[in-house]
């Protein structure tokens, strides 16, 4: 991650959007930041945490998004500018608190929520758009259109949040959050902050320092007044602007990364003189007057936004207040089918929409070349499915799960959730996982399945969760299972890191976000204290792991816990050399004649093992192999050899 604390005002740095947001928070004089890791949001807290001590701020990885937001609100109540950051799914986790927070108001320190959405769910279980929550709960909402704005807007949003006394939200998407661009730095503040929760003890006048959502109608009225004030600011905000001719053949209304795509499209089509772009940075409350002033620029309006038709619907609602004889532009967008209402967009999609509306043809490259390039790529480029890394403990765990379920013979069911281990839905985990929803959902689903004995259900139920997920979202579900005596095995894939999002620490690691040692919250001690039987396995020991799972399935009874403990291979490989040198003994490998159906390369599918077509034998790819040696126990012929490296 970049050095976001560099004290060089006026210089340009190459920052990802998340670093720009973190820098904006620093320039705003933030004192407190909390988050739960989630792609594409993780680097906001990550980059703040790495400089927190140096900059005398506090940053934490919270156990989940709700606690992160609540902790940040606590800091706001004591006068400290604070921030909570999360991915789109986190907004659901925190929404119950948000619905109360908007009523109670925030403290003297400005409070900002950053939500990073993941159109196309590139690293998510869904592609939920979080902008509607701003409309739903009355939260002032902004969205940066580039990297510079990500910084500048964040800084400005703290001022606004503090002035209004309400939570303000910044929405970003993957192609801003995780893309890199130029950011010109501003000044860093140099002031000591003092935290104090002010209280008025006069019982006749306690309301101003009571952060409570009641009496609800009165608080609701206050909130609307704050939104009116936000609207006033938004109407004149420089984050909203129009570029293009005074009278345009087409007006594009856009926000976020789609602002960049729209500019690319107009440039590619050479339509600067014909098409105007109305770029909105303040999205809710919608700056109605500003939008109305520009709507008459053209009789055709195209909405370019990811994912839901948020601006499209909001502007169309505004259309309802047009005078009866007003000329109404024709609206194009998701409703008309010119822009997809799913998945992320890109410049080509905008080029296509604009060309269709204006009846233009666009050709990026020579047609014959294009046909040839597409055809040879299609016929020569093989698929490249996602898989676990070479040496990943999850592959070993799912190998044992697969074998234990087969040996048990009762058609056992594996429920799961989101994490690297979601790949167990496919060939990486031998297609073992049958359900996947939000974090921890597999354990809740297992609770239900595990209570169906009275209906003749006798399939074993195995719920897999990651170690960070265990702390985040499964403890109530486990307690429910023990209390209600549901019959399932909770399998915790403990690789000692929040691996999928960048190896952040969690309560089981003994390390805080700021790199301080802390108490380890032992998952086995916690589960045992609840009365569950707990077994700890080394997933690389395939035989023992399989035997323990089989025995636990046979035992039945209430909820049990099996912990698969082995450090994430990517973390290990950064610190140490491979433990083994692994090779295939070409004498012993008898290839297709073995009868194992190429267990190693067709079924186990570690990318470190390849199939040599010329010799008809398996082979280790020394560039990929991490030397874990697990495949040695997979080969029935004993042809894979490991030697201490």
């Amino acid at each position, binding site marked *: 991650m970049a050095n976001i604390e560099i004290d060089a005002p006026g210089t*340009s*740095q*190459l920052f990802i959007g998340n670093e720009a947001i973190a820098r904006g928070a620093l320039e705003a004089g933030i004192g407190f930041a909390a988050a739960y890791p989630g*792609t594409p949001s993780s680097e906001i807290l990550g980059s703040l945490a790495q400089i927190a001590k140096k900059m005398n701020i506090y940053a934490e990885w919270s156990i989940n998004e709700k606690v992160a937001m609540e902790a940040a609100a606590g800091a706001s109540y004591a006068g400290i500018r604070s921030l909570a950051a999360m991915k789109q799914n986190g907004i659901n986790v925190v929404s119950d608190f948000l619905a109360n927070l908007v009523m109670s108001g925030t403290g003297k320190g400005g409070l900002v929520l950053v939500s990073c959405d993941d159109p196309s769910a*590139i*690293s998510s279980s869904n592609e939920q758009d979080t902008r509607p929550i701003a409309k739903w709960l009355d939260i002032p909402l902004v969205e940066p259109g580039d*990297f*510079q704005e990500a910084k500048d807007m964040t800084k400005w949003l703290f001022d606004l949040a503090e002035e209004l006394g309400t939570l303000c939200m910044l929405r970003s998407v993957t*192609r801003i959050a*995780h*893309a*890199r*661009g*130029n950011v010109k730095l501003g000044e860093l503040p140099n002031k000591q902050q003092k935290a104090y929760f002010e209280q008025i003890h006069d019982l006749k006048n306690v309301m101003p320092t009571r952060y409570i959502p009641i009496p609800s109608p009165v608080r609701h009225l206050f909130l609307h007044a704050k939104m009116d004030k936000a609207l006033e600011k938004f109407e004149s905000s420089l984050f909203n602007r129009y570029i293009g001719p005074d009278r345009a053949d087409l007006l594009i209304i856009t926000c976020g*990364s789609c602002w*960049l*795509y729209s*500019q*690319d499209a107009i440039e*590619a089509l050479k339509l600067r003189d014909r098409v105007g772009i109305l770029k909105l940075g303040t999205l809710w409350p919608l700056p109605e007057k500003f939008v109305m002033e520009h709507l008459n620029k053209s009789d055709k309006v195209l909405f370019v936004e990811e994912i839901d038709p948020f601006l499209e619907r909001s502007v169309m609602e505004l259309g309802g207040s047009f005078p009866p004889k007003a000329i109404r532009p024709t609206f194009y967008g998701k409703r008309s089918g010119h822009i997809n209402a799913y998945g992320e967009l*890109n*410049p*080509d999609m905008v*080029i296509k929409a604009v060309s269709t509306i204006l009846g233009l043809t666009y050709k*990026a*490259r*020579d047609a014959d*070349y*294009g046909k*040839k*390039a*597409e055809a*040879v*790529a299609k016929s*020569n*480029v*093989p*698929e*490249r*499915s*996602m*898989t*676990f*890394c070479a040496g990943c403990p999850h592959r070993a765990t799912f190998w044992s799960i697969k074998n234990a379920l087969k040996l048990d013979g009762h058609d056992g069911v594996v429920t799961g959730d989101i994490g*690297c281990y979601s*790949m167990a839905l496919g*060939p*990486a985990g031998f297609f073992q996982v049958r359900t996947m929803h939000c974090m921890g959902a597999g354990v809740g689903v297992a609770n239900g399945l595990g209570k169906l004995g009275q209906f003749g259900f006798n399939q074993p139920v195995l719920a897999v969760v990651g170690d960070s997920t265990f702390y985040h979202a499964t403890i109530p579900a486990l307690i429910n299972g023990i209390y209600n005596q549901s019959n399932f095995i909770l399998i915790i894939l403990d690789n000692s890191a929040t691996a*999928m999002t960048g190896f952040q620490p969690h309560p089981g690691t003994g390390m805080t976000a700021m790199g301080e040692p802390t108490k380890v919250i032992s998952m086995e001690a916690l589960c045992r204290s609840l009365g569950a039987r707990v077994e700890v396995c080394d997933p690389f020991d395939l035989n023992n792991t399989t035997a323990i799972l089989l025995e636990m399935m046979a035992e039945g009874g209430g909820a049990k816990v099996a912990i698969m403990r082995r450090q994430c291979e990517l973390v290990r490989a950064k610190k140490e050399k491979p433990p083994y040198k692994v090779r295939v003994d070409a004498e012993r490998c008898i290839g297709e004649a073995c009868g194992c159906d*190429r267990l190693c*390369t*067709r079924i186990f*599918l570690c*990318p470190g093992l*390849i*199939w040599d077509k010329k010799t008809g034998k398996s082979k280790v*790819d*020394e*560039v*990929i192999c991490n030397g874990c040696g697990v495949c040695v126990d997979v080969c029935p012929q004993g042809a894979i050899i490991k030697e201490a490296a």
Partner: protein
Amino acid sequence: MTKKQLMKDPLNLVITGVGGQGNVMISLIIGNAFVRDGYIVTVGETYGASQRGGPVMSHMRISKETQYSPFIPDGCADIILGMEPVETLRMLGRYGNPRVITIINPRPIYSIDVTGGHAEYPDLDKLVEIVKELSAQTWIINATEEAQKMGSPMFANAILIGALIGSGVLPLDKKSVEPVLRETFPKEIEANLVAFNKGIKFVKS
């Protein structure tokens, strides 16, 4: 070396390979060198879930004028740096055009679809020929092989950066890149500089 101009504005550079090879690292080094030389750079990358063995690509847009989007439009790549051969072809299929320049590391990384027998990896010589045919100019740099001789396949990244700089297709010289390399690899800087210089040499020979 003299300061050169961008051959086009924006200059569109695709860096492609397989998750874990070091795409992001290369785009960071090149991107930082450009920003320090006063350019406006946008880098879009696919990583995250595709970190693990999937196809990865970085799109770099380099300009003197404005901040471009993190996606190169289809058919509009100027340079493709391919860390893996079929991934280079995948990019040519979508982003290639008759003017495109390619630098290719011809070391295959087989996908699980190939090892599992569900897909076919093309013959390497034929693959390199196709890449050449679809490019205005192609450099073949045995980066992985040379890096392994140096003790670790990870040095392939510095070799490829060297090749990119040595090829002269970017208006960046050695002096702009070296300080960024030093900051990126503080511990293994000597070996990485050796690799970087090897890359420059390979592309010129």
